[in-house]
């Protein structure tokens, strides 16, 4: 039976005794791998972020002001509307993170451990929620509840609902619902690694079902804390909701203020950088709580002997209750954005009336301008997802080792990168990689496909790592050691000992990155190679040039294509991967 043993103990359980020559190679690799990893992290995340953030105190460094050192801009963000907006962002993000876990945890549990009807639909639905850009649900809500909107036309005169949705309540709800898939994926992956034995042990000792749940829930703590941290960081950096729902309700969020600072002309990069510092500092809150909660514990429970789970049979009333709850979540999380997108794309007159037309889809299909960007974004997504999963796995391995200053720094760096809005990230790339000295050396990276993909990888890596860290923390080192004892080289030891256990989380992380990059906008806007626009730019081109209906039709088409790819990849996984790999973490039906 697997035990909650300290990671260091399990690592030292088997001494394989390699040959002297092999030991030397291993020693070099053991040094080179972390060094290479850290070099990559410094180049793709730390350097660009610092290049922008330094503008808060030294705008002269990049020709963005006259001072080499000033605290004026940092001081300005603690006053007036900016301070209020930052404060709003903090509490809204905290509540949204909790909502994400409060819904994502039971959803993951019900799908993985029970015979709830319709559970097969939950995972694709979660992916769909992830695929939908955050402005789409906001748009749907606005159309539903605004004065003279659909709700009023249907005879429901409920101004209290309008005020609630177009304000803090609506903002928290939409951001919270957007966090559910992150929690669901992180906790599902961790649940997959936790066999039946813990629940059985609790039950054998007389625990009720609820008590056994309370006993095993702490085993999932790394995944839950990861979900909370990522939910907070994602919400604090979101702009789609800040610019729509929050804007309509005159409820200012930090990201909106930050974008305003950049969008005004001339843009005030030092003010934006100062606000970004606050957002970065804010992720210290969930990280601090996470560190305090997990200190000194090991969560290595995933082994080859992990027992397959037997699904719990729900009672009739339970089935009804949980199905209804999940159904409501899907209606709210998917139905509303679908309404927003469909109403926008099927209505000719700016979506204001109920007269339907397919003219936007006809216009979209008659133009070839979307096909090339679609194919281009597909390529970018495939490359980025593949590279990022490799980096993400490596980062997750570092994070789950014994806590050192380096792992703490990496942990903060990765989460801080999520909290930095993408436009800041992209502007930092321009600052860092478009220096005159680089051009004099013949290095022109800015506005090349290469730099765009590197930036995509860097922006995807933190979330990717968070998704993987829950599962990786459950791995017992003895698995690989056992394979090595039986003569496998390091690569084969990983393939035989680790890959079967991590194939599903790695697949999820790959899909998450792919879908995130496929419709990514802010980084694309600032870094894309001229004349080679990705699909998000092509869509924005129409949305920004009054062709709202065609732009929305393109969004619908792109989301459906991305969803089709997700389904194909999941299908291929089922077909190609050995049955034994899929069985790990799955439940008996």
């Amino acid at each position: 039976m697997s035990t909650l043993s300290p990671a260091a103990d399990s690592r030292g359980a088997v001494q394989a005794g390699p040959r002297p020559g092999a030991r030397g190679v291993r020693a070099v690799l053991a040094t080179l791998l972390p060094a290479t990893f850290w070099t990559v992290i410094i180049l793709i995340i730390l350097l660009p972020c610092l290049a922008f953030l330094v503008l808060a105190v030294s705008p002269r460094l990049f020709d963005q002001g006259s001072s080499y050192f000033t605290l004026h801009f940092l001081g300005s963000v603690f006053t007036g509307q900016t301070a209020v907006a930052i404060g709003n962002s903090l509490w809204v993000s905290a509540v949204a993170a909790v909502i994400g876990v409060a819904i994502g945890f039971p959803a993951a549990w019900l799908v993985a451990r029970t015979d709830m009807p319709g559970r097969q639909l939950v995972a694709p639905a979660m992916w769909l929620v992830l695929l939908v850009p955050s402005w789409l649900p906001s748009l749907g809500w606005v159309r539903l509840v605004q004065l003279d909107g659909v709700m009023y036309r249907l005879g429901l005169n409920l101004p209290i609902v309008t005020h609630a949705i177009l304000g803090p309540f609506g903002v928290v709800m939409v951001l919270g619902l957007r966090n559910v898939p992150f929690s669901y994926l992180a906790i599902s992956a961790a649940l997959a690694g936790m066999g039946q034995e813990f629940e059985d042990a609790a039950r054998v000792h007389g625990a009720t079902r609820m008590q056994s749940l309370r006993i095993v829930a702490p085993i999932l703590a790394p995944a839950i804390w990861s979900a909370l941290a990522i939910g907070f960081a994602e919400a604090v950096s979101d702009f789609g909701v800040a610019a729509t729902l929050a804007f309509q309700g005159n409820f200012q969020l930090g990201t909106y203020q930050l974008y305003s600072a950049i969008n005004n002309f001339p843009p005030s990069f030092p003010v934006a950088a100062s606000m970004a510092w606050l957002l970065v500092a804010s992720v210290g809150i969930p990280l601090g709580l996470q560190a305090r909660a997990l200190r000194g514990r090991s969560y290595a429970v995933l082994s080859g002997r992990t027992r397959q789970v037997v699904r719990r049979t729900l009672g009739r009333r339970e089935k009804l209750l949980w199905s209804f709850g999940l159904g409501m979540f899907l209606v709210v999380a998917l139905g509303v954005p679908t309404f927003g997108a469909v109403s926008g794309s099927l209505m000719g007159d700016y979506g204001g009336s109920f007269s339907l037309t397919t003219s936007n889809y006809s216009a979209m299909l008659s133009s070839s301008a979307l096909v090339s960007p679609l194919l281009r974004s597909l390529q970018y997504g495939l490359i980025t997802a593949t590279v990022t999963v490799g980096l993400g796995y490596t980062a997750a391995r570092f994070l789950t080792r014994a806590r050192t200053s380096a792992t703490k720094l990496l942990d903060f760096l990765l989460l801080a990168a999520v909290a930095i809005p993408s436009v800041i990230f992209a502007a930092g790339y321009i600052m860092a990689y478009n220096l005159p000295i680089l051009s004099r050396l013949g290095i022109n990276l800015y506005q090349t496909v290469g730099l765009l993909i590197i930036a995509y990888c860097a922006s995807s890596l933190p979330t990717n790592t968070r998704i993987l860290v829950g599962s990786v923390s459950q791995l017992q080192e003895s698995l690989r050691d056992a394979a090595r004892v039986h003569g496998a080289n390091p690569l084969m030891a990983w393939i035989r000992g680790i890959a079967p256990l991590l194939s599903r989380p790695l697949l999820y992380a790959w899909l998450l990155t792919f879908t995130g990059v496929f419709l990514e906008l802010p980084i694309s806007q600032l870094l894309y190679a001229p004349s080679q626009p990705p699909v998000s730019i092509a869509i924005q081109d129409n949305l920004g040039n009054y062709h709202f209906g065609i732009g929305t039709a393109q969004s619908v088409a792109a989301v459906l294509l991305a969803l089709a790819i997700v389904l194909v990849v999941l299908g291929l996984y089922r077909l190609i991967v050995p049955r034994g790999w899929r069985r790990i973490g799955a439940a008996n039906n």
Partner: protein
Amino acid sequence: MLKKSRVRALLATTVLAASAVAGGISATASTAASHPTLVVYSAQGYDKTVVDAFSKATGIPTKLDDNSTGPLLTQIEASKNNPNWGLLWVDGDTAFAGLDTQHLLMRGFEPNVNWTPLAKSVIPADKSYTPTGLTTMAAVVYNSKVVSAPPTSWQQLLSSKWKGAVGMNDPSQSGPTYPFIAGMMNALGGESQGKAYFSKLKANGLVVNPTNGPTLQALTNGQIKLALVQSSAGVGAALGDKSLKVEYLKPVTLLPGCIGIDAKAPKAVQMEAERFIEFVLSPAGQKAMHAGDPTGDSLYYPVIEGIRPLKGLPPLPSSKTQRINPYKWGPLEASINSWFDSNIK
């Protein structure tokens, strides 16, 4: 010993990684250095059609960064110590005045064309940018089935008749909206008078939406009765919905679509950029501008004598228009938008 070897390995890896990055991109770099390409930064709906037509007519390879105005200006400001653009082509001259003040625009170029009187009024003295078309801000758009007697002056919008019925865009998100606000301040005698006007408009129930699209949507779904939007957006909407009408109140502010050349671009690129501007203002270029976005940005008033606007545009008598000084109002944009954010939204 172990520590030393690790440090050496770390250093070696860093150097190797940096070399790999540098080597990997050097091919691109050398190509770019030996054959500088004209890159057009544009937010115009017809830009791709024009760029393709230009390349076809002249054989000059041209790349297009097609974006909203905000990201384009962010790119230019973020990369101003090592710019990558050759031409900037967006609506509104306040941003151009700001770039000119920073010495980021090439001065002294004026194509040899026969300008219209309105076009002459928006050409800067130092010839640092060139108008390519005119729109106005703000046009008043209304639904003729709902509104039988539209307002005839800006002051009427403050009356009880239009309480809660007027909508406009947010200047922080909609590029053309700041020139409208600045234009009202200019017409009313100054910044404080303009602020007083917008404060009264707010007290009368002004609805602020992010951009032209949502403001027009608020009009078509009945939330508001009058939409104050860019003329090309309003006329485009009216082409699709015959019940929508467009009026210009006096004075309406001219919003020139402008194009400017990067002052730091290589000489060869600057010469190609000049040819691009000459092409845009030629009959072939104007034809491409009209064809590129016939229900959107192509609905502009031409700046060249003899070129007719597309059908559907209402007359634009010069007696109704005003031009704001972009060098005066441009530097005030951030502070006025911030005031609008705090007091009007």
